[in-house]
């Protein structure tokens, strides 16, 4: 399946549990993959405070992923657990947003990616906290309190660095231009999303865009950054069509469990 055929997929015939499972993978995988990306900064961040902050954000995201994927495994009922889902799927099985897998590059890209993601994540979790499935709602209610701190930090940094020195401004603008094509995907639903929204399990992705856009525009304006006018949005992550970056990330993240299956210590 290619990204091009995604929108012409036949009507879903997924069962209610299959829709829930797929929805949980989409939410959990984005948290897991961004959590891993952010953890790559551990020991390398430009200041001690930022190193600690990155590690904490990564920890929150990976903790949330553990809850989402744990529930996914329970719903699937195939004997897998959160670790099996995290460490034993290939890239094509991952359902994360392309934005989450984008490489860290410099600190500007890392910060901008975090802000664009956090602003979406906060909207998503607010919707999921109202899910008709209480297991989904309780994870979201917990995660959104943590994400409020992520967003507070990332927007403070975007403003500080955007409206900072000529060098930091230029890097933040370049980061925004680089990442903008990945900001259409979070709001483009497919048949699975429609089924999940219909069942009241998750919000309709498109419904999250106005809140996200209002916040992003306000923060970027304060940061003196210019919104790119590109319309070449990229998508495919939520149906398993990823870029090269995810394969490289998984090669590191999954190495131990792949090389030494069932290793314990």
């Amino acid at each position: 399946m290619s990204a091009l055929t995604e929108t012409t997929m036949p009507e879903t015939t997924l069962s209610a549990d299959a829709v829930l499972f797929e929805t949980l993978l989409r939410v959990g995988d984005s948290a897991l993959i961004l959590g891993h990306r952010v953890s790559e900064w551990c020991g390398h961040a430009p200041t001690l405070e930022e190193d600690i902050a990155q590690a904490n954000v990564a920890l929150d995201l990976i903790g949330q992923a553990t809850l989402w994927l744990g529930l996914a495994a329970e719903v699937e009922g195939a004997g897998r657990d959160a670790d099996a889902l995290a460490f034993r799927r290939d890239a094509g099985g991952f359902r994360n947003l392309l934005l989450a897998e984008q490489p860290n590059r410099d600190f500007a890209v890392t910060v901008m990616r975090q802000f664009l993601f956090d602003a979406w994540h906060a909207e998503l979790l607010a919707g999921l906290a109202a899910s008709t499935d209480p297991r989904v709602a309780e994870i979201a209610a917990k995660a959104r309190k943590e994400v409020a701190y992520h967003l507070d930090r990332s927007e403070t940094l975007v403003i500080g660095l955007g409206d900072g020195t000529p060098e930091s401004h230029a890097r933040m603008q370049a980061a925004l231009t680089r990442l903008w094509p990945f900001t259409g995907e979070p709001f483009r639903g497919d048949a699975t999303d429609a089924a999940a929204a219909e069942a009241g399990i998750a919000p309709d992705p498109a419904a999250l865009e106005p809140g996200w856009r209002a916040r992003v525009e306000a923060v970027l304006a304060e940061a003196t950054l210019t919104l790119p006018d590109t319309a070449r949005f990229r998508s495919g992550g939520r149906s398993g069509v990823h870029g090269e970056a995810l394969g490289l990330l998984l090669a590191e993240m999954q190495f131990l469990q792949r090389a030494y299956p069932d290793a314990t210590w």
Partner: protein
Amino acid sequence: MPHGETVDRPATAQVWAWLAELPDPEIPVISLTDLGIVRDVAWQGDTLVVTVTPTYSGCPATGIITLDIERALRERGIGKLRIDRQLSPPWTSDWLGPEAREKLRAFGIAPPVPGSAAMPGAARARSLADGLSVACPRCGSDRTERLSQFGSTPCKAAWRCRDCLEPFDYFKCI
């Protein structure tokens, strides 16, 4: 009661008292019950069920806490024990009582400022630190500033006193 002695269904109040002696693994100056993460203690037949909620989703202390509870209660002679995880209602720093807050302050950690919990949504202030007055746990000065929203554990933020110039941990509201 001597450790290791088998007992027959001790009262839940007794179990709460035992749990109150268990220190938090990362902030040992307060106990697990001070932290508010033990949500319930109940007997289901001959099985003792202790319900625990995590502070943060990814808090690495959660696993240690479960082990600590299990070990402590087995040492007290509880044979049949189950530890349930409960996510809802989500843990909040509001569950730290006045005594726990004083213990934190005495230890050098500024306790959470009541009413400043992270409130996602429209009501949220521009920055969670705006208008937040955190007193320095060392000199008591209110002239303090936030260095980072995150600190040495998931539940803390990094602050600095502008009078005594000492950096300190702030147990953040959530």
